[in-house]
């Protein structure tokens, strides 16, 4: 890449207004190294003074070919790539991919593994929303929010380290169950978190929700109507803040979500402040699910005993010849999956995280496509920032909660 390619206005002629061609409005680059773009996102802005006329997002700076790489690995080994997708939601990505694999090969998951998955995915949702709350506070100069949010997030990452040995790249949820049972300290660690966290959410809300400076920056900007949101494929909290009650955990329960009692917060305003309120409310709802799941966490195995697809436990390998053979076959060759395709979706902190998986009869997938929610949520940005100030753009971008690893894949 030694050459520098020159970009002319001709290439963007169809995306900017006519006034840009005469030089009446200004074209300005925001990013890719701008602190408020939450990663490496470049926005080409057409500005009339300080007002945004057009916004052209430019993505792909973090493209690492995850989908291509997954095609070259066996089903189990491809799972580690999913951690690198949306690095704020690693457990959720694992779950989405693993659910697609389980649907393709038709393997059941024992109840204890299902409950553990729910606990960990909901903790991950809290952690992800905390990063969003902290960074969007930081964008609006509420510096202390960032420090408080990361304090609680650290506690969740410690729980992940306890169960999987890793803070972020967990790969803990595996096809057929989870990697191994949680250690005895797990319950106390989660109970400690459940005990302190409601008070911490109250603290966040004291700092922000009624804060006049915060309200001035958040209310009445970035309106997203229901129709636009649906047409652009916006899902998750951003869709629910526009008055659509759609949550895959309620609509199509998976992993036993139907047993838990929780609400799906919705707002009808559709502005930046509504998206903030929905996410803060989701923190409380997720905590409710974690508590219920922990209270009725059943005993029993954490992995399916279908040895054709799921590796046997370590303790069996020393005493059983069949287990050794299964272990060896599964980790070298992998398991064959049928020549068919499945689409399976979960509710990630950002919206519908879908996995399209097609097998070709062999041990490696023919095609893996991740329908990542940030990609489609960012697509609507150019529509909802028109006519607002550049300073508002920062708040609007923060409110749709993008993760660039999720967009660029």
């Amino acid at each position, binding site marked *: *890449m*030694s050459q520098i*390619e020159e970009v002319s206005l001709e*290439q963007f002629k169809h995306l900017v207004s006519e006034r840009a061609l005469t030089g009446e409005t200004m074209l300005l680059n925001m990013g890719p190294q701008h602190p408020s773009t939450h990663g490496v996102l470049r926005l080409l802005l057409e500005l009339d003074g300080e007002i945004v006329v057009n916004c052209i997002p430019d993505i792909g700076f973090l*493209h690492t*070919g995850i989908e*291509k790489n997954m095609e070259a690995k066996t089903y189990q080994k491809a799972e580690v790539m999913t951690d690198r997708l949306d690095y704020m939601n690693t457990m959720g990505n694992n779950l989405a991919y693993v659910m697609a694999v389980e649907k393709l090969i038709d393997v059941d998951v024992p109840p204890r593994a299902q409950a553990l998955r729910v606990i960990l995915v909901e903790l991950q949702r809290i952690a992800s929303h905390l990063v969003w709350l902290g960074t969007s506070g930081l964008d609006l100069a509420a510096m202390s929010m960032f420090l408080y949010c990361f304090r609680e997030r650290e506690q969740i990452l410690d729980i992940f380290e306890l169960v999987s040995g890793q803070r972020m790249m967990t790969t803990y949820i595996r096809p057929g169950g989870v990697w191994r049972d949680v250690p005895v300290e797990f319950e106390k660690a989660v109970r400690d978190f459940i005990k302190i966290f409601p008070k911490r959410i109250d603290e966040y809300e004291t700092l922000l929700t009624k804060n006049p400076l915060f309200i001035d920056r958040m209310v009445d900007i970035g309106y997203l109507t229901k129709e636009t949101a649906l047409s*652009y*494929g916006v899902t998750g909290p951003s869709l629910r803040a526009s008055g659509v009650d759609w949550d895959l955990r309620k609509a199509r329960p998976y992993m036993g979500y139907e047993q838990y009692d929780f609400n799906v917060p919705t707002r009808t305003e559709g502005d930046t402040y509504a998206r903030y309120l929905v996410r803060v409310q989701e923190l409380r709802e997720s905590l409710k699910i974690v508590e219920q799941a922990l209270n009725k966490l059943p005993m029993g195995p954490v992995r399916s005993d279908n040895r054709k697809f799921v590796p046997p436990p370590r303790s069996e390998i020393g005493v059983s010849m069949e287990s050794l053979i299964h272990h060896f076959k599964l980790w070298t060759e992998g398991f064959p999956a049928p020549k068919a395709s499945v689409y399976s979706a979960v509710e990630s902190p950002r919206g519908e995280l879908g996995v399209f998986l097609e097998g070709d009869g062999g041990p490696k997938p023919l095609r893996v496509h991740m329908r990542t929610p940030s990609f*489609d949520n960012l697509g609507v940005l150019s529509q909802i920032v028109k006519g607002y100030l550049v300073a508002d753009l920062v708040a609007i971008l923060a409110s749709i909660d993008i993760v660039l690893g999720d967009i660029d894949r």
Partner: protein
Amino acid sequence: MDKKLEPIVKALQSKFGATFEEFRDEVHLFVKPEQIVDALTLLRDEHNFELLSALTTVDYHPQSTPRFHVIYQLTSLAKNLSVQLRVPVNGDSPKVPTVTRVYAMANWRERELIDMFGIEVEGHPDPRRILMPEGTEGHPLRKDFPLGYEEPQFTFNFDEIDLRKPYAKE
């Protein structure tokens, strides 16, 4: 198949002659490239499929007729249903019409098809590459595009490999 899906499948079969497949309760309907805009419009306006969840492609290389299946995964929020439309496309000049006017979400996902699979999208409002840089040769997600790797450098061949690296060619 879900009982509520039956009339929708029947409507598409009678109107477009769509064939259908089923796997693990998922319904896949096959339509021709020129019918896709009408089929999606029908599903959105008359059967409440408000959301286009995913738009992607599978490459069946070396098979060439059809080489690609373009996949439209639709969700109905009102009826809580899903249906998948598949459009087989030949390998010699892969081409599908744009569905941006039906679902605005298709804009970026179709740019991804152009970029990653080299499928021409007729009538697309903004047919630039989306993830790869402008000027990239080839389409990375095609099966005949090599995965690629970096040669490992050791002490004895460090300089030799260094000369072959792109940054050394200034």
